[in-house]
């Protein structure tokens, strides 16, 4: 069955959620990925939204992280203070999904600005909850399209800490969470090496080569000894995305 690059990312993220209990969800692709995981391998996965929701059971595809369908039928709806203090900072979120406009080899993310901070070429949205999510979640899964202008040697601005300057960087600053674990893109999948904290190419999409991936990355890429092919979406996953989760095709 044919699939789009977005569907490959959604399915990759959904599968990476196997074993997670509580996931901090963003809008868009991450939202579809989390709901797909709930409907396939992880029915007990609890969805947390920074808008103050724990245990969402949305009756429709939420169009924002504050959609009213996330409130109705949720297990709990709290103030944002409680959400950030008790749930996130309290260490109850084991997995978070994040994205960004720029990422570096250690999984640090920029969602603030392209160009100089005081004289921006492009003003991006900023942190939102990303900085504290990246600091406190048990692990972070990053979802981004692979593009040379996004995978850069040096970020214009570090919004959210990944592995900082490499393995051990987070421990030195006392960050509570484990940091980035995976980068899921439309053309390849990367894991972070435990020794160096560096992004490592481990899977490539059908039709890609190590060279085609390297050409979209702004630094000399660390490559696993056993790069394998990304497993494409199966039919059931595609059916669920197309017929249940995003019937209007907003995110494909």
């Amino acid at each position, binding site marked *: 069955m044919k699939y789009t690059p977005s569907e490959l990312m959604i399915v990759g993220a959904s599968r990476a959620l196997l074993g997670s209990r509580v996931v901090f969800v963003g809008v868009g692709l991450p939202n579809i990925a989390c709901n797909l995981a709930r409907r396939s391998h992880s029915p007990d996965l609890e969805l947390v939204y920074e808008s*103050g929701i724990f245990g969402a059971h949305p009756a429709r595809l939420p169009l924002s992280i504050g959609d009213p369908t996330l409130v109705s039928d949720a297990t709990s*709806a709290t103030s944002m203070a409680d959400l950030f203090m008790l749930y996130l900072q309290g260490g109850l979120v084991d997995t978070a999904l994040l994205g960004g406009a720029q990422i570096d080899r250690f999984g640090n993310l920029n969602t603030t600005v392209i160009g100089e901070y005081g004289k921006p070429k492009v003003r991006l949205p900023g*942190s939102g909850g990303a900085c504290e999510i990246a600091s406190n979640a048990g692990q972070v899964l990053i979802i981004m399209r692979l593009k040379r202008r996004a995978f850069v040697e040096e970020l214009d601005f570090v*919004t959210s*800490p990944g592995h900082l300057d490499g393995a051990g960087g987070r421990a030195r600053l006392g960050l509570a969470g484990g940091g980035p674990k995976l980068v899921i893109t439309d053309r390849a999948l990367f894991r972070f090496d435990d020794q160096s904290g560096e992004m490592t190419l481990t899977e490539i999409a059908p039709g890609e080569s190590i060279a085609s991936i390297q050409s979209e990355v702004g630094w000399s890429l660390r490559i696993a000894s056993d790069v394998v092919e990304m497993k494409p979406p199966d039919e059931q996953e595609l059916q669920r995305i197309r017929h249940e989760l995003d019937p209007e095709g907003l995110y494909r």
Partner: protein
Amino acid sequence: MMAPVFDLTQNQKMNTTKLCSMKEAVDRYVADGNTVAIEGFTAFIGFAAAHEIIRQKKQDLTLCRLTPDLVYDQMVAAGVAGKLIFSYLGNPGVGSLHCVRRAVEKSYPRPIAVEEYSHFGMVGRYLAGASNLPFFPLRSYAGSDLPAANDRIRFVESPYGNGQIAVVPPLKPDVAILHAQRADAHGNTQLWGLLGVQKEAAFAAEKVIIVVEEVVDETTIRRDPNRTLIPGLIVDAVVREPYGAHPSYVQGYYDRDNAFYLAWDSVSRDPDKTAAWLQEWVYDVPDRASYLEKLGLERLASLEPGELIAEPVNYGRYA
């Protein structure tokens, strides 16, 4: 549950209380140069108040909000703001806030200063302001460039030998404008759904304007005291303004008008279209009732949710 849309007689009957029109509330409590917080995270966003502020041509406001959203995009486009204090500058689920970007990137229609935190940092600022603390501590910012971009984000050493922690200073807006489902004429306010930072912003502010879908009797409020998040004690004005949060939403009363959020993207990309929109939907309508009339009953009806009544609870009578 739904109150009639265009009936404002309830306000007029109770004008010995804090009840007043939006025009009066903004005129009395929002002054040029004020720090203003129109809060509400996706829900409860006070568009009716924002439009009245634009109509009254307030100047040099410092606008605080976690998510400036369309409400501040419109205010920035109208030139009422001199500064933004925020944590996420986007059209949620859609893309950029083009008017804010024009102001930041190109100083159009005027330059704008920015003071930027993360969501948790903004929450902490309101909490510190609300509770008269000199700072609020949070586990964030270590390893981020945000403290370098904003020197009000600092670090303190724990006196228990367990490391450093980031802190943010109190935020005490001159005025907070907060939408909710219901309040009594004294301003005792109940809301449900996404609580956001409504309570914290109210307690942090010097003046509080409450905008509600329904004004109810004090006895209604007192039948569920745990639901009263904002006491009349800290409220200066109560404005009954049904659909006052459109195109955002009020849980149980109306849905978010997502079509509006999508449409704003193309309107706001073009300064001329933006100006025309402001003319048609803000300057040329005297108040929210007229805005709703222009919007049309059909559009409003399309936003009505089904009914889902909370499970009852018994507080008990102890006499």
